[in-house]
């Protein structure tokens, strides 16, 4: 309980219906629902992960995928230390959109932002659907752009926790106030607030488990 807690602000980006909210739901509540209502604006969730003697608290902004809401995205990624750029491995269009998000993040987000490229809906392939985004193609993009890369299934839970663990490992364990601070927009990483939250396990998101 008294281990040091690092808070990581993380944002999810990606085309509509690729499974952003489902990945978060799997990670936070270990749950899945087939037809989740489309996210409007953005949803906020948190989850704690123990890594050795250290606890990482993910503060997650799950953004809406539709293009019309894209103008809100900067508000959420501006001060983020990590981003998941999600696409659907059966939808090539969603991979194109993922490229755009990676580009935008490199141009607009904090310099040290850790980005994970996530190809979701692996279960569909196992169920016989045709893969439309080759793993190699995504790996190539990840290598070129310096991204973490995962293929996941929010439905089965396959590889989902690994994404977050991977990000946790890549972000240097510093005190929150030493982490990159943006100049405007959301200031989610309020030092005091994080400490407060750390003192009260009940204050974390309902249904969250410490995994």
């Amino acid at each position, binding site marked *: 309980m008294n281990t040091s807690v690092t808070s990581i602000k993380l944002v999810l980006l990606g085309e*509509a*219906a690729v499974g952003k909210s489902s990945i978060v739901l799997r990670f936070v509540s270990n749950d899945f*629902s*087939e*037809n*989740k*209502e*489309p996210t*409007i*604006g*953005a*949803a*906020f*969730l*948190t989850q704690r992960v123990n890594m050795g003697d250290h606890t990482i608290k993910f*503060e997650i902004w799950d953004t*809406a995928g*539709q293009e*019309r*809401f894209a*103008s*809100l995205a900067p*508000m959420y990624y501006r001060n983020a230390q990590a981003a998941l750029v999600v696409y659907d491995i059966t939808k090539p269009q969603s991979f194109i959109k993922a490229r755009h998000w990676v580009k935008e993040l490199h141009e607009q987000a904090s310099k040290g932002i850790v980005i994970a490229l996530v190809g979701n809906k692996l279960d569909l392939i196992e169920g016989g659907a045709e893969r439309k985004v080759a793993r190699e193609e995504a790996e190539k993009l990840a290598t070129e752009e310096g991204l973490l890369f995962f293929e996941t299934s929010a439905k089965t839970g396959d590889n989902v926790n690994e994404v977050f663990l991977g990000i946790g490992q890549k972000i240097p364990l510093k005190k929150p106030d030493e982490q990159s601070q943006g100049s405007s927009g*959301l*200031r*989610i990483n*309020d030092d005091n*607030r994080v400490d*407060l*939250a750390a003192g009260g396990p009940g*204050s*974390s*998101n*309902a249904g969250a488990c410490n995994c």
Partner: protein
Amino acid sequence: MGVRSSSSPYSPSSKEMYQKSNSSSSTLVGSFIKTLRTGSSKQQQQQNPGAQDGNIEAMRKSQTYLRRSTSHGHAVSGIHISPLRSSSTGKCSGKEKHHHGKSDKYFTDLDEDWSAVIEDYNSPIPVISNGGMELKPPVKVSSKAEGSQSPSSSTNYPTLPNLTRALSADLKSQYEKENERNVQELNSLMHRIAKFDAILNPSNSPQINLNDLRKLSWNGIPAIHRPQVWKLLIGYLPANTKRQHSLLQRKRLEYRDGVQLVFSKEHTRDIPTWHQIEIDIPRTNPQIPLYQFPLVQESLQRILYLWAIRHPASGYVQGINDLVTPFFQTFLTEYLPAAQKEDVCRLNPREYLTEAQLQDVEADSFWCLTKLLEQITDNYIHGQPGILKQVKNLGQLVKRIDSDLYDHFSHENVEFIQFAFRWMNCLLMREFQMDMVIRMWDTYLSETSLETSSSKADNVSISSSSNSTSHSTPLDSPRKVQSSTGLRANSAGSTLSRQTSLSEFHVFVCAAFLVKWSEKLISMDFQGIITFLQNPPTKAWKEADIELLLSEAFIWQSLYKDASSHWR
């Protein structure tokens, strides 16, 4: 104006009724709201009746009521609430089943002949007495126990040996009381239905008085009238009863032709739009069985696609898929017998509709969605300026009505857009169960200020505000009458009323909704606040709760509507 105060228990009676008087208004109304807000609905259900008959007498003596509005020179000093039975809405709360019809639904009559209903009432009338702000709760009808469930009133039961007898005696009296109340509620409902009948079937003219209809509908529309009344309120169905049939025929045909054209080979499919709608349809109201039927999904997909194609400036935006469903569902009930209207959420329309009827429902839904979206176009065009403005206004409003909460949000770095974006984008639909949304829309659609030529002819409209007042048709100007005060004199005498836009009223509803949780929120940190507001505890809300919310919004609007003009 502060927001938190300790207070006496109160009744969540729905629509306020103001007594016109000469004393000053705003502090009293403010403290009324404070008083209202501090109670919780659960508490309310357990309150005992305490109002005296003298209060009824007092109400009878007051001749003039200031209804739904205050304006300069008209002050409010007493607020009378009568527990009349409200309209019925369908059981459409997903998995949740309400004890419909027996739950605490109270209704405030607001018309001139209100006393006629009061006469039938034996139960005490709760009265917020003049100045004293003492609130007497009405007898609440607790959810009727199915089987032998114990009554929900806070009776202190004797110890175990006596339990059975005491319980059965208690149950019996409870049951009798409930029966009595149910009869009263039924009478009240019948009375309301009769009033709607009278307005919808005017005896000496083909013209329906839309202002009267709007006033009556603000407090809820009986399920049997809802489909027709919604179509009238939103300006789809003409007020002239002689023209209604031909218009419906024409519009339904027009829709059918539109669909045919858009899905013909000549028309190039807008793939991204089609794709976006296609993936959202199965995700629309996933908890309600009705929306899982392929027949329904196909209907909604056609409606949304055709709308998107015809409105390229906006196009399809997520959230619009939510907005079409109350229309669709309500219009389906037109084809269900009264006893089954509440089952619309789970019945397959194929079982009770012909192909042609389904097409009519689809066409009507399309046109009404079109009318609704005309009023909030700015919410969905590029950059969504309408929503941004509303969110900003909400912030400014909360700063005025609950500065403690506003300051707390600032301190915790909570920004209004983080939680209120969705409230605006989906008109709070994600925050409530479907049957509550439908009840809310009775009021929302009554708030739409569609001044048709017919209603103008029936009423003298005098603008008493310095703000510009537009009476253009909705087609010319989707966002008109932003903030104006209309003094409308109608045949029944002078009634104060007011015209505003739906989006403006919605901001006040959002403000009322937010400050309702003020006490809780102020003790929370960033994470707690956002998490709470993303999933507010409204699943058990009943009509009375929604009606209280709408009343509070109305009061805030009455107090701050002038201030709102400075926000822009």
